Structure formats: C-alpha cells, structure tokens
C-alpha cells in the first residue's frame, strides 16, 4: 500500500475532503434557505464513494441512491451543477426537476441517484448487459445500502447478473442503519457480502472508512468484470455520522456508537496517514483543502445566482416526442 504515489494519495484525500465539505456546505445552505428539499448526507461515508469510483473509468457507469452526493462527486460530478440542482436551478444537473434524489449525468456515466431503496440496482445490471452484448469492456457499479439488500430488486438483479456473468459490481455501503432501524433488525446476518453466494459470485468485505482499501477491492472487482469473470459484491463497513436526513432526531442510535465510529472518521484518519505514511507536508494538504473550499465557494456562488426555472419548464422533458402535445 505504501506503494501509492504521493500525488495519487493526495488526490484521494482531495476527493474525500471534497465530499465531506460538499455535504457540510449543502447542509449549511439548506439551513440558510438556498436548498429547498431533503438532504440525506453521506458524512462519514466518503471513503466508499471515492474508493469505489477511483477504480472506474469515465465510460463506466454507476447507479446511486438517496445518499448519493458522494457517489456523484466521486464519479466526476461537478459541485457547481450539483449545488445548482440542490438549489433547484435551471442550470443544475436536472434543471431543477430532480433534486438531490435524482441527479444524473450520462456523459459522466452517472445513470442516476434514486429515491427508491434498491431501485437502481436492476438498471446497473441492464447497463452491464448492454456492455456485455456489445462486447465493450465497460463495467457498471451499483451503490446501495445495507437496507437495500432486503429488497426483491436486489435479489432479482443479482441473480440475473450472476447467471449471465455480467460486468457489474454490487457495492453495498453497510452503515449499520436503514433509516431508524439498525441493520441487525433488518436482516439475520451482519456480513451482507455473504449474500453473493446465492448468486455464485465473490462477496468481499472491506473497511469502508479506508479509501485505499475500498479502491483496491473495487479495482480487483473491476478487473474481474472486464475479464468477463462476472460480478462481485463488495460490502464496505462504514457509518453515517449525521441523521438519516437533515432534521432526523436520531432517537434510535446506540449510545457511544457514533463516538466510536467518529474516532475512525475517514477524513482526519486519512489526513494523518498522508503525513505519517507518505510524509506529505501539512502545508500541501492545506493547499488542497483550500482549493476545495474555493471550489465550493464557487459552487455556492454559482448556484445562488443560477436562474430559477420558469413555470412552463415543468412541461419539458417528460417525453422525447410529445405528438403535437397529445401526451399531456
């Protein structure tokens, strides 16, 4: 692991730091009124998003979840257009129609966040099927939570992928909760990677708070996928530091649990490693952090001044072809 080049690990840090700070900024801007909708932040879970997407190419695709900001940023999403979308502006990723739950960018291979738990998994399998049919060496990766592994959609999609040995990666972010219900009260096992055995592909458990461990596991899975060896299930063990959504009273938390996990906060932990393992100077890190802050300032400024949609825009984009208006 010490093999990683300095510029690489610094870039990894930049990415997880960006995700963290984006979330904090979005939460702040929601409080200030710029952002009208719900936010399900991924604070504490930056390493899974970043580590996994690092192993992908731009023309690989992902499907994401309600807790998707990290995935989207990690896959190359521009904070400007993301913030503008959260602010419901016309120049946001979805022109203000989708919001946090539905950000997509097909050029970046982001097939969409999703408001339905488990809802995006079958589409990832379908994209992988297309790649396989067209003999392209692309892969699809689907992010989902521990809770989503109890949905029928996960099971059906995983079975199809295992059967056809499709180039798809099932990335489960096991953050120990589905909304207010602990994972242990949602399924009779805590190592969800085991579920891959039902579909005859490998299930791998990884420290979801370590971006490099996640990266390595995903890289292996991507290699297998590109080599035609089929899917992999990766379970990243992690933890959500904030509420399920902003405003969640969090009555359900086990006392002490949050503090335990905060001691393993991926951002300061990895920052410390930069210094200790790669001998990166505090200054250099600061520079990266400043540039991220700068980027986020710009994103917020962009979003704040971006145009608000006009009413009639609501009628656009339901269909490609509206048959002379007959479909409304």
């Amino acid at each position, binding site marked *: 692991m010490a093999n990683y080049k300095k510029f690489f690990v610094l870039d990894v840090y930049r990415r997880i730091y960006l995700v963290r700070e984006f979330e904090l900024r979005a939460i702040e801007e929601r409080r200030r009124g710029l952002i009208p909708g719900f936010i399900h932040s991924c604070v504490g879970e930056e390493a899974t998003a970043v580590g996994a997407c690092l192993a992908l190419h731009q023309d690989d695709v992902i499907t994401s979840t309600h807790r998707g900001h990290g995935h989207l940023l990690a896959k190359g999403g521009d904070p400007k257009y993301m913030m503008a979308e959260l602010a419901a502006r016309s120049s946001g990723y979805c022109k203000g*129609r989708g919001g946090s739950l*539905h950000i997509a960018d097909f050029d970046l291979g982001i097939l969409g966040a999703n408001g339905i738990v488990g809802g995006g998994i079958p589409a990832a399998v379908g994209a992988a099927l297309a790649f396989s049919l067209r003999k392209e060496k692309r892969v699809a990766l689907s992010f989902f939570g521990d*809770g989503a592994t109890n949905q029928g*959609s996960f099971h059906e999609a995983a079975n199809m992928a295992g059967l056809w040995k499709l180039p798809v990666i099932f990335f489960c972010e096991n953050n120990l909760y589905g*909304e207010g219900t602990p994972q242990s009260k949602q399924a009779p096992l805590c190592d969800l990677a085991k579920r891959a055995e039902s579909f005859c592909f490998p299930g791998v458990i990884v420290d979801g708070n370590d971006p490099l461990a996640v990266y390595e596991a995903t890289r292996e899975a991507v290699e297998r996928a590109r080599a035609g060896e089929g899917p992999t299930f990766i379970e990243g063990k992690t933890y959500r530091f904030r509420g399920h959504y902003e405003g969640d009273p969090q009555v359900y938390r086990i006392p002490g649990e949050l503090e335990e996990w905060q001691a393993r906060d991926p951002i300061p932990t990895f920052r410390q490693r930069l210094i200790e393992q790669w001998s990166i100077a505090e200054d250099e890190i600061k520079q990266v952090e400043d540039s991220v802050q700068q980027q986020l300032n710009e994103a917020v400024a962009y979003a704040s001044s971006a145009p608000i949609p*006009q009413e009639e825009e*609501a009628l656009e984009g339901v269909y490609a072809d509206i048959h002379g208006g007959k479909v409304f």
Partner: protein
Amino acid sequence: MREISYSEAIREAMCEEMRRDASVFLMGEDVGVFGGVWGVSHDMLQEFGEERVLDTPISEIAIVGAGLGAALVGMRPIVEIMFGDFLMCAGDQIVNQVAKARFMSGGKASVPLTIRVTSGAPGSAAAQHSQSPESWFMNIPGLKIVVPATPADAKGLLKTALRGEDPVIFLEHKMLYGEVGPVPEDPDFMVPFGEANILRSGKDLTIIAVGIMVKKALEAAAQLEKESIDAEVVDVRTLVPLDKPTLIASVARTGRVIVAHEAHVRSGPGAEIAAMLAEEAIEYLDGPIVRVGAKNVPLPYSPVLEQFVLPGVADIVRAARSFWPAHT
C-alpha cells in the same frame, strides 16, 4: 369537542382498536422505535411492545404479503407503507393477492388488512416521494380506497377499516397530518364507507373534492362567495366505494361540477367520478365536467415548478369562473 390533529386522530384510532382487539397489530418500516417517519405511531411501541408494533426490513412485498397471510389466519394487520410511491414495489401483492383472495376462494378468504400509506406532495420531495396514488388501484375489484380529509374522518374511517373484513388502502395526505379539528372521543365513533360528506351547501356549482383538495375547495368556495358564486363542496371520503347517489344529487341541484384532486388529471380519481356523472347525471349538467388536478408531468423538485404542476385554490376558482364567462 376537543380538537386533535389528523396525525393524532389516526394514532388514536390505531391505539383504541389495538386495546380493544388483540388481533390488531401494526407493522412497517420504522413504525416502532422511530415512531413512523411522519411520527404517526410515536410511542406506540412503548404501549404495545415489539410484538404488536413491528419494525420491518425495507421489503414492501414482504410487508404487504405478510399482512395478507396474517389476515388469512385471523389477524387484523395494519401495515404501513411509508410513501404511496412505494406501493408499486408491492404491486403484485396488492393487485393479484390481497384484492383477489376473497373472490378467488369462492368468498371464503377474509382479508381484514389495512394498508396505511402517505400520499401527496410534501414540498420538493420530487417525483418518487410526492405521488398521489389515489386511482392506481381503483380499477382493481376487491380493494376499498379511503381518502380522509379531516381529523374526524381520519379516525372514523380508519376505525371502519380496522373493524371491517375487507382490504383497505388508506391514504393519508402528508400535508394534512398537522391539520387540527374536532374529533369525537367515543371509542365506537366510526365513519361508514361510501358516504360522501357535503361540507358546504351551495346552489351554483358542485365541487367534488378528494383528500387534501377538500380544504382547498372550501377555500375556493369562500373566495367564490365574494364573487356571488355559491359553491357546494362535497368530500368523497371514500373512492371505492363511491357514494354515487350523493354526488348525483348534488349535481342535480347545481348543474355544474368540478372534480378536484391532487393526483394527476389523466386517469386520476376524477376520471372515474366524471365518467360516472357523464353516464348517470348528464341530464342535470349545464356545462362541462371540469377536472382540477396535477398536470400530467412527474412531480418536480423545484418549488416553482412543483407549484405550477400541483393544483391549488386558484385553479379551482379559475375553473369555477369559467362556467360564467362574464367572470373570467
């Protein structure tokens, strides 16, 4: 009479019936420790314990299907589906199993199952968390569909559902939870299905309203009064069964009708109501049957777009004025 909220009224109905009848229990995602994401079942876990207030996995098929199975062996389950949008995850169980069990078994199966579900747009929740599934299952014989608009009806209709022998889809509008109104304390207070409620008598125009649009119809009627348009407001209360006689009699008196609901206009509940009137009451009509509902586009995230898509008081007022071209 003491006043309580729509949300408390629903909770009260559940609690009273659970105290009265050991076969009633509540099951759903986060209904226990969390108290329901809308807070409707707060503290019920404390009173009734884990065996009667069950937090489930995120498994809508299993939730509805288990409700069916429990009902078939003598229980009276209340299952909560967190958002109406997620009903479709359990579509087969609802349409092919729950609705048809009695008929297919030659009338032998009893399915006293109440599916409580939230509906409507809570504001910038976007396309997968804002739908009004009022009409989605109206084409399916075997289900009853209930749309309470007031705290008293919420309690009384839920009690009718819980004491009945048939499956009921009970639609709770998210933006009504906070509405406060008088609710009888009589533990046997029930509102029968199939009885529409004339909330305001009027001679010029009938506004048939569904769910949250009842409130908006009353507001519209108050505005119209100032323009000397005397509107009758009828709350359907249940879509299946539909109280045709009351609706027809009202239209017979006024000769003009608007049907208002938050669901999309196309094939919304108003389609059936309008078609029924066009079949059975056309001789009384002095003008078109006007439907007011959400435009036929998915619910957008942006508040501007969302307000444009959703039906409001102004839409009802405008529709009413259109009957008297001089007003418009």
